């Protein structure tokens, strides 16, 4: 028996989990010694120097906070820092939102966007009593993992990206949502769709909202790029605000990783717009119970930074200016790449480079072309053809454009 104990490992039958594909690309990029290498696979904003950029407003607020002797490190309430959730909700819905004035919302701080989606889907799976969820095809890969781990046995995809037009397959999307069973959950991206960069226009949103209402589907709006899509918060928030205006109930998962550049501080919240204050109270109590079993309560540091900035007019303006720097640079890079490909007469239609919105672009490059691009030119992107536009800068634009031109010309 003693010999048995010595030999046995509880987990010697365990298999290595398949490594995260995005992480793998990053590893290969790091190992590459070529001096021309370009990383277009990263999931965070890069500045003109190709470096991470901490927003100046964040540095300002953090410096203030570090010398503030009134701040402590106590537990936050189970639903989070009120100054944060209130200001985040106001940012999302607009201060005059009927959901706010009628007190028909509850807000629950969570571990960034992932945690917000996790708690939201966990709640919906249990209390909508549905095991069916609809995700866009394609979508952020973690949506599938979260849906699976929160008990959705029936994970379906609605058509979304049209590879021929490199735009929205609106008819496919409407058809698929129309055939969805009543009472199931549908996850939508509020703006700057990840990974495609393809967003519905307002008319298309109205059609989508209509189907959701008619089919009695429950929407969870994944909102990771508020203000980061077009630089205009109100514009980016429009789909959510329209749903509220139309009297719908919905959940919104909000992340401040990108729009405040606070990736590793894990700042986010789940905002629930409901039909009455009483329902809000019941929902919030259930969310607290879910959170208690995952992480008990949330970190205060990042939430304080966001709350401080949003609640101070000067700092708020500084944040908007910082946002404009990022979205402005991304737009410049989109234009820059597009102009160069057009000038070269690169085969194909490249309008999507400037039509798509946000940090990511589905270039339309296929697996072989991606492999060629990486092998020959040391340009790293996802095998899906997704690039991070902010990985481009004036130093590498010519190089990348030339590389894409060569790739598309020679590899089919």
């Amino acid at each position: 028996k003693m010999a048995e104990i010595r030999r046995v490992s509880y987990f010697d039958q365990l298999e290595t989990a398949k490594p995260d594909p995005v992480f793998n690309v990053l590893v290969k990029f790091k190992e590459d010694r070529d001096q021309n290498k370009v990383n277009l696979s990263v999931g965070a904003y890069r500045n003109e120097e190709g470096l991470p950029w901490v927003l100046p407003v964040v540095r300002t607020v953090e410096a203030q906070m570090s010398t503030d002797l009134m701040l402590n490190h106590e537990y936050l309430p189970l639903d989070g820092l009120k100054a944060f959730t209130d200001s985040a909700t106001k940012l999302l819905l607009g201060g005059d939102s009927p959901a706010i004035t009628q007190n028909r919302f509850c807000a629950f701080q969570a571990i960034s966007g992932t945690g917000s989606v996790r708690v939201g889907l966990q709640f919906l799976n249990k209390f909508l009593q549905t095991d069916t969820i609809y995700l866009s095809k394609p979508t952020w890969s973690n949506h599938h993992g979260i849906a699976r781990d929160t008990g959705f046995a029936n994970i379906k995809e609605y058509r979304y990206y049209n590879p021929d037009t490199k735009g929205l397959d609106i008819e496919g999307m409407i058809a698929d949502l129309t055939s969805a069973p009543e009472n199931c959950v549908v996850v939508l991206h509020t703006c700057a769709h990840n990974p495609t960069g393809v967003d519905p226009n307002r008319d298309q949103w109205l059609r989508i909202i209509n189907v959701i209402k008619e089919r009695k589907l429950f929407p969870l709006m994944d909102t990771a790029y508020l203000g980061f899509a077009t630089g205009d918060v109100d514009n980016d928030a429009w789909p959510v605000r329209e749903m509220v205006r139309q009297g719908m109930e919905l959940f919104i998962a909000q992340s401040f990783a990108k729009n405040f550049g606070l990736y590793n501080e894990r700042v986010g919240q789940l905002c629930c717009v409901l039909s009455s204050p009483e329902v809000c109270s019941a929902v919030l109590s259930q969310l607290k119970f879910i959170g208690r079993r995952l992480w008990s309560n949330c970190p205060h540091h990042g939430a304080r930074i966001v709350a401080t900035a949003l609640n101070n007019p000067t700092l708020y303006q500084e944040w908007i200016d910082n946002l404009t720097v990022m979205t402005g640079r991304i737009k410049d890079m989109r234009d820059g790449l597009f102009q160069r490909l057009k000038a070269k007469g690169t085969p194909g239609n490249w309008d999507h480079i400037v039509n798509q919105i946000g940090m990511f672009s589905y270039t339309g490059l296929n697996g072989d072309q991606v492999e060629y691009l990486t092998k020959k030119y040391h340009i790293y992107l996802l095998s899906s053809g997704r690039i991070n536009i902010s990985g481009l800068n004036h130093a590498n634009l010519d190089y990348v454009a030339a590389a894409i031109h060569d790739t598309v010309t020679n590899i089919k």
Partner: protein
Amino acid sequence: FNFITKMATRSERSVWSHLSHGPIDPTFGLFDSYRNDPRPRKVNMAIGIYTDDKGGPYVLPIVKKVERYIVEKELDKEYAGIMGYHAFRQAATELVLGKDSPAIVNKLCATAQTVAGTSALRIIATFLAKLYPYGKTVYMSNHTWPNHPTIFKESGLTVEKYRYYDSSTGGLDTAGLYEDLQKMPEHSIVLFQACGHNPTAVDPKLDEWAEISRICKEQSHFLIFDVTYLGFASGDIEQDAAGIRKLVADGHKLALCQSFSKNMGLYGDRAGNAILVCSSEEEKTIVESQLSLIIRPMYSNPPIHGARIVTEILTNPEFKTEWIKEQREMFDHVFEKRRKLHEALIKTGSTLNWSRVMEQKGWFFFSGITKEQVEKLEKDHGIYMSKNGRIPVVALAAEDIEYVAKAIHEVTRH
């Protein structure tokens, strides 16, 4: 357009009409009740949080100093990676196991930075529920932190109790514990608290840990340690970790769920570390890959701020010395409150035996006060505490000690 506005009636029934309120969290719910009590004389004994003499929040000076130091460094805000900040994981693991632990030297520790202790427990529990090749039942002490059974049940494990606290002696029920460990099916999952047991304040002595180790090895049990009060049982971190280190030295491939909430006062920063001691370096890599599959759909990657503070403190000798000193001061402060409570209880003239106040270890005094007496304390004296009679000595303000002692005497005299 008219069609759309007609659809948008606010009187549409909510899908949630059937929804009821969630269960009120025992700890935070109690705290809420205390807060809402309008009486001027009330005492909050609901939550175990270290407070200064006025009952207010306390930030360790070294923490404030290091926080400023870190902010001045102007570090990035990039994702920490699913498993978290590597230097933190290393430093945290070395703190609890000791730098020369065979588990560390032989690179056997699978680690993950987690959202404080709660997430460490949730991740380990989920890992076991998913991949443990034997029975999916976890055994925990007859009294334990209320969130323990909740977390493990949520993860899909069945929860059972083992005898631990002996209410007749106010100490460890060694006979009951050893017997229960032997009676459990082989390869059972058993949860222990490393030190400063919450709520009983009773810890096994080193020779008792040795016996626990012997039986568990015989039974091939899988051990999980909740490491929340490191430094608060004896005032010395190495001494508090002695039990765990003995078990690791004895070859147990155990799991640890480590929190820096209490010993660094980083409650709101959520700094935690999950450790799984594996059989080989290769297995460690495999286990970490499996843990990452669990973490990614939960919260993707952990919060950096608290982990940076912890790492800076643990890896800078000057900072570490300061921290050890301040943590020891917190311990002394709690011990002093314990002493004062003991004194005040004796002073009331109570004929009950209050010696266990001084025998127990850590933040709490497990008083033996009954549920009815606890209710009376709340009703008649505005004293809010857990129904199991747990008194967080750590949270007693100096001006409340005498009041509390008198009230306890009042409800326990016959």
